[in-house]
Structure formats: C-alpha cells, structure tokens
C-alpha cells in the first residue's frame, strides 16, 4: 500500500482495490482523516456521511472479494448538495432548505449506488447553484486549496475543492452556465459538462431547466470518463433525457495521437481583459494539440458569442423564477409562521430563506416574464439563443473540437467581486455559450499563473464538441493530458 492514498487517481485507487493491496475501508478512513485535518480551512463539505460511507465501504469490500466489482466500486466520492440523497439532508446551500430530508434518490445516485459508491458527504455550493465563486452559500464560502484566501470557483465550489485537495477521488457537480468547468479550471482538476439531456436531471434540484446538467469532477480525464459512463443514459423520469446510446469511452482513450483531428479556435473567446497567463497557457496548449497531429485553425469566428452573457442572464433567471416558486414554507424546509396571513408567512419565508443573489435572479426573471416585457426579454433571448446554436452547428461541420479558455482569469480573492454582480457574471463569459447551445464541454489543467503574492493558481483549457460526441471530447482531452504533467500537480495545503 502506498504511503498516502489521498492523491491517487480514481483509476489507481481502483487498481489497488482489485489487486487487494488496499481495501475500500482503507480508502474511506484515509479520506475522512484528510477531511478532518483540512476541512475547517477549506469548507468543501456541508455535511459528512461517515456512517453511511463505512457501511458502503464494507459492502464494497465484500463485493470486491466476490469478484463482482466495477471501476467505481468502493471509491469514496463527494456529492454536490443540489443532488437529492434519500435520507440525507439536502440544502442546495440555502437556508430555505435547512432540514430538508429527501424521500428519494436522484437518478445519478441510484446509478452510483449500483456502481458501489462510498459517499463521503454533501458538498458546499453557491445557493441554488447561482454563483461563480462559492461565496453565495448560506453556510460560508469554500477556500481554494491552491491559495486559501481565494475562491475555488462556483457554483460547484465544494466538489471542486474536495477533489483538488485529495479529500475525494471524484465528485458530482452541476453545470448551468459553467458551474462544473469554471471551478475545475480555478481549482486545477478535470470537470465535464455532458451534452444537455445526456445525464438524467431526475433528482437534481432545478435551477434553469433548459440549461442544467450533472457531470463529474476528477483528477484525470480517464477518471472523469469512468464516472460519466456510470451516470449517462436515458431515464424516462426526465422528459428531457435523450434516448441516445452512450458510446464506449474507454475505446476513445486508447490513442495519444490526434492525427486528422480538426481543431478550431474561436477568436471571440479571447476576451478583452483576459489575464496574460491564461492567454499564454491556452495558446501553449493549442500548440501542443498541433504537435500531437491535430490540424488547428486559429481564426474561427462565432460572432454571436458577445450576446451570450445577456441571453444567459435573461433565460436562466426566468426559468429560475418559475422553478423557485415551490419554496413557500408549506411543504419542507424553513418556514416563517408568525405572520397574520398566509401571504405574509410566504413573503417572510422567502425574505429570510433566500440570499441576495437568489432574490436578484428571481426578481430579474419575474420582471423578464411579466406582462409587457416577455417579448422584449425572454422571447428575444430565445431567438438570439437560436443564432448562437446555429453558429456552433456550422462550426462543427468544419471542426471536430473547439478549444478555448474556461475562465478569463485564474482564481480571484474571496470578497473581490461580491459587491458587483455584473462583474461576477463575467466570470462565466467563456462557459455559458456551451450551455445555451446544449453542447458537451470539458475543463482540464493546462498550466499555472503566478499571483502578485507568489501563489500558484491553476489554469484550465476548455474543449467543446457537437452534441452527444463526448467520445471525441474525451479522445482529444486524454491525448492532451497525457502529453503534459499538469494533471499530476497537487496543492501543498
């Protein structure tokens, strides 16, 4: 057994289990030791499920002994608190859901239970997945393991930090406008947003239903592919789940050669104000793709990209304003009950239960959908959404993969952007077009920036393909990753 189990990749840990060099109980105990030593500084978890985890680890060890184990059997994982877990409190980082114990499991949890997951706990997040830094959690921010005074990105802040700091071998997150890829980039791990409809949203607490998608965080592309294979596929309980077969990803990870792969670089993603270190790292990564045999076109144009931020911040809050109407203090969670009337109770429940960002977005969406404004905002945004989608469609006639930055800057300081919502929204300018068009996208480590105070801050590379072509996405990501050592770097926390 190696000295430290915490920073193995999922695949390496899985090999140890199947070779009987370590048990799932060993991995689980090591994970909780790491969490107990670190998490008062990182705050990746909202709650730990130690008893459940140890039971699951014992069951996994028996399953391994019977020779019935799969690649995820017995591997400790962290679950974003926006995914419902039967019998385990699920709050979405919000006071309004404090104490809510779901009576059922999300589809992804059913799949992970079949695969033999060991659930360590539920991870911290921006309230209802609305945010780009983790600072909108009602239960306090998460720290970036690479620099504790900086954000890990968001909204899946705890999931990214747990994987980056060696607490969990993989984690589930959700991505509505970049909430997996942006924290993966800022925290130096791999994060995948699958095609819209690829993974069932049954049991994913709804934020913006036409954009939301569940996906994995991991420490290597291969690991992310293993989790993707476990959770992807049609589910009749989600009517937007796509009846499309899931390809065999392991075949896509066989070759490190990218000969013949057509790569396009959309110029509009290199936005004004982009950090120089990000520009250099991403440019270097694209040159590396060329040296692996890819044919790179540096001058692709997606002219509607500049409209994506406005489109997103109309569509997502509009859908959110409808989805979050269910939090009324009647059925579950926090309830104000001292009012004179039912309406007063409901207004006070939502006043005290929701944080500022959630209120802002509900009000934006309510306004955009209200009588007299629907055509000017929501309908207009949906039409521009069509233009953005068609430009991607045209690009994918010529290119197999589009490559871009994930975030215009590396991790910023906790508190730096909280006073200026529009500035915070700009953190997602390179990721949200992918949600608008329903495409799969991945973030993988491609270098580091050095901050003024000397901190080493990870930088992510984004790859995007046409819908349902995750096989090509993984092929390109794997070949790049294996030709570098960035994914082997660990924070010294």
């Amino acid at each position, binding site marked *: 057994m190696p000295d430290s189990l915490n920073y193995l990749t999922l695949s390496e840990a899985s090999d140890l289990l199947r070779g009987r060099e370590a048990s799932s109980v060993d991995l689980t105990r090591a994970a909780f030791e790491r969490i107990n030593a670190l998490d008062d500084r990182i705050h990746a978890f909202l709650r730990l499920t130690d008893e459940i985890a140890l039971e699951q680890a014992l069951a996994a060890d028996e399953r391994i002994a019977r020779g019935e184990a799969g690649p995820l059997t017995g591997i400790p994982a962290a679950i974003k608190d926006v995914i419902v877990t039967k019998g385990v409190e699920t709050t979405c980082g919000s006071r309004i859901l404090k104490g809510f114990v779901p*009576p059922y499991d999300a589809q992804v949890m059913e799949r992970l239970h079949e695969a033999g997951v060991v659930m360590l706990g539920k991870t911290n997040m921006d309230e209802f997945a609305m945010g780009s830094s983790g600072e909108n959690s009602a239960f306090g921010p998460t720290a970036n393991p690479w620099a504790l005074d900086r954000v890990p990105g968001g909204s899946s802040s705890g999931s990214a930090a747990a994987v980056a700091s060696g607490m969990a071998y993989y984690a589930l997150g959700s991505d509505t406008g970049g909430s997996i890829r942006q924290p993966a980039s800022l925290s130096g791990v791999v994060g995948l947003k699958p095609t819209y409809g690829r993974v069932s949203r049954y049991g994913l607490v709804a934020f913006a239903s036409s954009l939301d998608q569940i996906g994995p965080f991991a420490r290597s592309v291969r690991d992310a592919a293993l989790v993707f294979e476990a959770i992807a596929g049609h589910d009749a309980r989600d009517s937007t789940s796509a009846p499309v077969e899931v390809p065999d990803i392991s075949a896509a990870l066989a070759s490190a050669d990218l000969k013949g792969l057509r790569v396009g670089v959309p110029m509009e993603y290199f936005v004004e104000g982009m950090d120089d270190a990000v520009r250099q790292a991403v440019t270097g990564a694209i040159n590396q793709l060329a040296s692996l045999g890819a044919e790179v076109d540096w001058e692709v144009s997606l002219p509607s990209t500049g409209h994506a931020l406005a489109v997103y911040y109309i569509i997502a809050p509009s859908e959110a304003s409808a989805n979050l109407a269910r939090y009324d203090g009647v*059925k579950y969670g926090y309830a104000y009950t001292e009012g004179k009337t039912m309406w007063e109770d409901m207004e006070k429940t939502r006043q005290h239960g929701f944080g500022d960002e959630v209120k802002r977005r509900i009000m934006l969406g309510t306004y955009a959908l209200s009588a007299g404004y629907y055509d000017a905002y929501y309908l207009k945004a949906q039409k*521009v*959404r069509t233009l953005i989608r068609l430009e991607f469609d045209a690009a994918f006639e010529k290119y197999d993969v589009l490559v871009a930055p994930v975030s215009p800057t590396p991790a910023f300081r906790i508190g730096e952007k909280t006073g200026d919502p529009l500035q915070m929204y700009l953190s997602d300018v390179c990721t949200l077009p992918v949600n608008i068009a329903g495409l799969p996208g991945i973030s993988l480590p491609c270098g580091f920036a050095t901050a003024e105070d000397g901190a080493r801050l990870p930088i992510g590379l984004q790859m995007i393909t046409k819908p349902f072509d995750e096989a090509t996405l993984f092929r390109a990501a794997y070949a790049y990753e294996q030709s570098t050592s960035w994914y082997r770097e660990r924070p010294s926390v």
Partner: protein
Amino acid sequence: MSLSREQVQHIARLARIGLSDDDIAKFSEQLSEILDYFERLRQVDTEDVPPTAHTLLLQNVWREGDKPEPPLDKEDVLANAPIRDGDYFRVKVILEE
C-alpha cells in the same frame, strides 16, 4: 433603463419576496445596471429567427404505458412538513370571509 422603488416593490410582490427598505434601494440600483446590459440584444436582428426553448428539439415526450409504481413514502414526505396536521400540511386561511 432604471427601475423605480415602486417597480422593485411590484416585482417583489409578484415573486412573493419580502424586502426591507435597504433591499429595495440596493436591488433597484443593481437590477437597473443588469437590465441596461441587456439592452445590447435590441441591436441583434432576429427577424424570422425562431426561438429555442431547449436544445434537444424533442417534442411531446410521452410516458410509455401507464405503469403503476409505488409512490413516495407518506411518512418520509410528511416528516418534512413545517406544520403537520395528521396526514396534511397545515397553512393559514387562504380565502378570507
């Protein structure tokens, strides 16, 4: 585009969110700034462009057959009720006399 206090109060009422006086001032400034940013979409030509509601282009997805399945456990569901009254969620009077 600037939202008045009255407009912010109206939106908050539609959304059933109570706001303090400070909230109203803060949100009217912040929401106005965001709505200003949205103005740029007016310049985009969307004549004859159909809207995209979602990207899968699936329509009218029906369930296969009507298979009865066990419902959620009643006790598990009611255990979350802020105010439970037997097998009911209790709320204050809705219709006034």
